[in-house]
């Protein structure tokens, strides 16, 4: 370490002062931050220096096991969206999926569009949605007589194939960016249903439906709802509100649906299915 004229920086008064002052500041900062302050946190400081440093680094050193019997955990779904599940859910082959989907035609319609309004249309639905629901039916976290039986006969790869097939069909408009902005999609809207869908109702802690189900936004594993069947949407809202459907991770749907009135459920379902809410 040498500056100009062959003099080392340690011989330079400016450099020496700078290094001394900085070292002093750092020693003080680390001393207070890692040794002194942790001892005063939340009134129950660490017992040793090692614990203090661990706490300052963000490790939990005070976790104690809670004794006694614990209730069994309630698991909403076994699907975790990480690199491998997303990759698997998107790796389906639509051709193979079309063949497997012959089993679905009776209820979900010829090309994934059905006239039975209590059954969902599947055409155009995001592959992650179909993948997650089939996995939930298979594991029993979502319950339906016929669907549970069918899902149990499928492997994970076949599930992805079916998902890819339905995604490839034209149908339910997709969520996502690139929507042309339109007036009236805020609290200023005069239409109570439109307000609920796009802005939600913060006084009740209800987020807008569109934030996850589109248009203009999406959430991983949440279906786009435009042109979905009304009776199906309404039934699902009821089931979430009652807790008889409980496969929503972190329970957003159980929480929100539980706060909606019957009329609101009906109106929201009708608005989405009628195409009043379109992606573009």
């Amino acid at each position, binding site marked *: 370490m040498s500056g100009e004229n062959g003099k080392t920086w340690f011989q330079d008064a400016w450099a020496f002062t700078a290094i001394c002052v900085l070292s002093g500041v750092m020693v003080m900062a680390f001393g207070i931050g890692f040794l002194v302050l942790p001892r005063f946190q939340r009134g129950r400081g660490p017992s040793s220096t090692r614990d203090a440093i661990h706490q300052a680094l963000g490790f939990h050193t005070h976790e104690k096991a809670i004794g006694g019997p614990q209730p069994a955990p309630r698991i909403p779904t076994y699907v975790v969206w990480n690199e491998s599940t997303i990759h698997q859910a998107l790796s389906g082959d639509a051709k193979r999926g079309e063949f497997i989907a012959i089993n679905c035609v009776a209820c979900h319609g010829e090309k994934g569009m059905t006239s039975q309004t209590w059954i969902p249309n599947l055409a155009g639905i995001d592959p992650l949605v179909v993948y997650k629901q089939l996995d939930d039916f298979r594991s029993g976290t979502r319950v339906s007589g016929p669907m549970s039986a069918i899902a149990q006969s499928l492997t994970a790869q076949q599930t992805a194939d079916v998902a890819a097939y339905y995604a490839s069909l034209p149908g339910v408009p997709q969520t996502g960016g690139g929507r042309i902005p339109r007036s009236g999609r805020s609290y200023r809207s005069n239409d109570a249903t439109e307000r609920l869908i796009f802005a939600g109702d913060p006084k009740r802690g209800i987020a807008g439906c569109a934030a996850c189900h589109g248009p203009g936004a999406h959430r*991983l594993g949440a279906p786009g709802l435009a042109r979905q069947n009304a009776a199906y949407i309404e039934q699902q809202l009821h089931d979430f509100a009652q807790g008889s459907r409980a496969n929503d991770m972190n329970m957003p749907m159980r929480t929100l649906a539980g706060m909606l009135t019957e009329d609101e459920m009906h109106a929201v379902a009708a608005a989405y299915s009628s195409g009043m809410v379109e992606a573009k």
Partner: protein
Amino acid sequence: MERSRLLPLAHFITAFLCFLPAICLGVWQMLMRSPLPVPVDDPNAYYASVTAHGSIMAYVFPTLFAMGFGYAIASSAMGGVMRGEKWAWVGFFVSVVGTVIAIVPIAEGRSSVLYTFYPTLIGSPWYYVGLVLVILGSYFWIALMVINMRAWKQANPGKPVPLALFAITACAILWGWTALGAAAEVLFQILPVAFGWRHTIDAGLARTLFSITLHAIVYFWLFPTYIAYYTLMPQAAGARLYSDTMGRIAFILFLVFSIPVGMHHLFMDPEHGSGFKFVQSVLTFMVVLPTLLTVFTICASLEIAGRMRGGKGLFGWIRALPWGEPMVLAVGLSLLLLGPGGFGGLINMSFAMNAMVHNTSWVTAHFHLIFGGAVVIVYFAIAYELWPRLTGRPLVSKTLACSQLWLWFWGILITTVPWHIAGLMGQPRRYAIFDYSDPLVAKTGLLTILSVVGGIVLLCSVILFSYVLVRSFFAPLAEFMPPVRYALAVNPPASVPKLLNGFGFWTIVLLALLLISYGYPIGQFFFLRGQDSPGYSLTRELVR
């Protein structure tokens, strides 16, 4: 027109051409947040607009401005022609092309991730590519500043580098190091997800990397303003700078302390323990030192000017100052805005007090007061100062210019003071729409309407600014236009200690501080794995 003048001129014109539409977006955004009726009240449009406003105001506008100012300083220091002008043009075009590439997906609504990116939000990859190009263009400038300062030292061995050249080089070096944080985040984390090569992203690591850029970028914006404080204002006031050495120390302290402090933006983030948050909090307080040094030196320089003009008594020198000079007026108003802005910053950087204001409108109001107020008002004055020199045509009216600065000053106050108060009342930031029928929210309605009024005043000010510059551009050529003169110190140094004449040692200090304060906080992500979450891709569409 000389080619060397064309270079800064092109930068300034492009910067202000981006600035005007961004201001309009800002006014609309405030209107959207207010209880007043507004065209296109669509939250999606709001977030697209915030992304455009922020990307232009945070990246494009100040970067182009600093580059233009740097080239103007370098060419005058080098006796008219700076080294490597060809490369400066290359950098300019890279930045401009990057701006265009970034703006298109924002306008399409496919990159509404706000200018601070916020992974796991993922926008169109072209948005990030565009911004990377903007930054890449500025790296040409960084290299040229360092090369020119070195060339000056070789041509003038043993002499102190002119303060303006010294400071703009410090600014360039600061930007060179600090931009690496955001660049690493974009290149190694966001772009692979945006292009679909990966699906998940570690948001904690991304935020930590971004924090390296997030605070020092403010000092990058501030540097041209401080350079004007030290080198242009005393000259415009007809006097001298109080101390050249003080200026050098201040700029060096900014270089050393403004980067290893970014974690004070992460006080509420769970991925870091309290230890490093405290250490960086202490370092943040160290940045207050050069600010106080600057305020002292500049006030002292103003007092010298006032007394030279016959001002007497304790405060009489203030009245004697030439307030009709845009540069003097702008610096005065800027110092006034820097006061409340700086103290607000002290609250934000204090580990405990931060919790009261975190994620509220207070923070947005704070950075608008500091950047929009204290910084940009001096950018206007720099433009007024350099414009006649670059175009060879005199400024059409100093009175109009001063009115514009006053308008801007009041506009900033009317916008940001109620905004701060709304934040203290709990108004959250990054919200597109508020339900004013809620009694708790309704209390902030009037304050937000006041901010809209302030925004309109700011818009008027920018229109006046454009008018003055455009009118001057078409004014007849001046017969003689003196070159820019940078202020001399009261006691101009014949020589300075070599550590105050270069950045080698200070760069090593900076890197050591970075390693100490960010080494573990970043390193931990590589051994505490499993924190990736799925990217929320705004542009995600089905693979058909």
